[in-house]
């Protein structure tokens, strides 16, 4: 099934992005090419819906990705005619097109200068501020990007997306405790987001298994990871990612069983006893194998998981079995 042009295409697979950008000519053709400016549009082109503009926005992104610059420009032109040249979102999209077409570093510097100029006129232009951060990060200037992002969060602390980006930048630099802090801020803003709980669990696990972690904080990280994964499962039935993480963590803890016995007393998060960990591990194994089995046999109502995820889960289960037979 072709992906819908109504959803942001940043996480699509290359094949899906290609399919989406191939819809572009049809979508461009199906709507009138003349977009009238605000006072006339109501009279001449009937009612408009917001979906149309969202579609254009997403098409720009996927067309740029697949290298179809012509279609991207066509979409952008329509947005400019409709919303004007100085609309913040349109400005950001125009910057995006320029970034994508920049051939060398000089051109990128040029785009960056433009962003700075816009921000010096209006420093609360959040879409442009975000583009600038993304561009800095893309150019490898991570410290600049981080400080700009922290500045942005200073005056807009309820922006969950920005906190999530900050966390991602910290992870890419291996600064796990900062990344965990930023992810916790996302959870404060979106407490029911099951994927963010799972993500935080993954961060805790990464922090725990990073080289050179003290044994006390190792256990704390692992205990937190179990909690986060469990919460994500609590928020979402049959959540493959949550069960996968839970199994990964409990398996590791069971292998190191002896270590868990002597816990540091008085720390905020203590590991549950071995019995509980064992039962959690059994539950995760049972659930994972059910998901894998039903998904592989294409049962009705179990086809929502991605094939890659299922394959990885099967590998994890397979590892387990080979250990048992040995």
């Amino acid at each position, binding site marked *: 099934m072709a992906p819908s042009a109504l959803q942001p295409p940043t996480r699509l697979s290359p094949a899906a992005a290609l399919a989406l950008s191939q819809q572009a000519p049809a979508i461009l053709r199906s709507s009138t090419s003349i977009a009238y400016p605000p006072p006339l549009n109501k009279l001449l082109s009937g009612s408009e819906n917001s979906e149309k503009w969202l579609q254009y926005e997403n098409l720009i992104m996927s067309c740029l990705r697949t290298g179809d610059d012509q279609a991207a420009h066509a979409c952008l032109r329509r947005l400019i005619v409709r919303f004007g040249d100085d609309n913040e979102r349109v400005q950001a999209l125009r910057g995006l097109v320029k970034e994508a077409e920049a051939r060398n570093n000089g051109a990128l510097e040029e785009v960056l200068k433009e962003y700075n100029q816009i921000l010096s006129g209006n420093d609360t232009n959040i879409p442009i501020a975000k583009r600038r951060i993304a561009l800095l*990060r893309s150019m490898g200037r991570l410290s600049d990007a981080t400080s700009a992002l922290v500045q942005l969060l200073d005056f807009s602390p309820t922006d969950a*997306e920005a906190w999530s980006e900050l966390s991602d930048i910290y992870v890419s630099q291996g600064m796990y405790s900062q990344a965990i802090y930023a992810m916790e801020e996302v959870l404060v803003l979106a407490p029911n987001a099951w994927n963010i709980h799972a993500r935080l669990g993954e961060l805790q696990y990464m922090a725990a298994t990073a080289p050179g972690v003290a044994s006390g904080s190792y256990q704390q990280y692992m205990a937190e990871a179990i909690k986060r994964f469990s919460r994500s499962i609590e928020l979402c039935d049959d959540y493959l990612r949550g069960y996968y993480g839970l199994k990964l963590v409990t398996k590791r803890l069971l292998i190191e069983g002896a270590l868990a016995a002597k816990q540091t007393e008085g720390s905020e998060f203590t590991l549950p006893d071995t019995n509980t960990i064992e039962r959690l591990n059994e539950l995760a194994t049972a659930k994972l194998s059910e998901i894998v089995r039903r998904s592989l046999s294409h049962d009705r109502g*179990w086809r*929502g998981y991605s094939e890659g995820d299922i394959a990885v889960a099967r590998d994890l289960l397979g590892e387990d079995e080979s250990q048992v037979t040995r």
Partner: protein
Amino acid sequence: MTLLSKAITALGGLLLGHACYSAREHTTLLSLRAATAATLTSSPTAAGSLPLDIIIETIVSTFIILVGLVLGTRPLRPIEWRVWAGKIEREGEEGFTDSSGAVDKDFVGNPFSLLEARPNFVDIRKQRRDFSEWVRKGDAQRAQ
């Protein structure tokens, strides 16, 4: 399922129509008889109500129509968070399609996936590079 509900609704409609027709016939007959009776005796006797069987038929047919309509509604959306979230993860788009195969307009998958995808921070140059890499790999595979 839909055929059954349609059949039941149609049956209910038929019964209701029959009841209406019977009621009309009954009142016509009654007024005719009253007119003829009035010429014979001057007492207005037959102002009576509808017979019981027509009343019962009306009520029963209304209920049958209701049952048919209720059976024909789409399955209700889950109201528990974890069930709803699980449905999104487990079934994907399939769980939110109607009988004609079109995905619900307001279906967006996991609404929180935006927090991980971060469309406003997209690194378009990297995506472009990755895509051309993917194309080249596909070409190489086809050439083999």
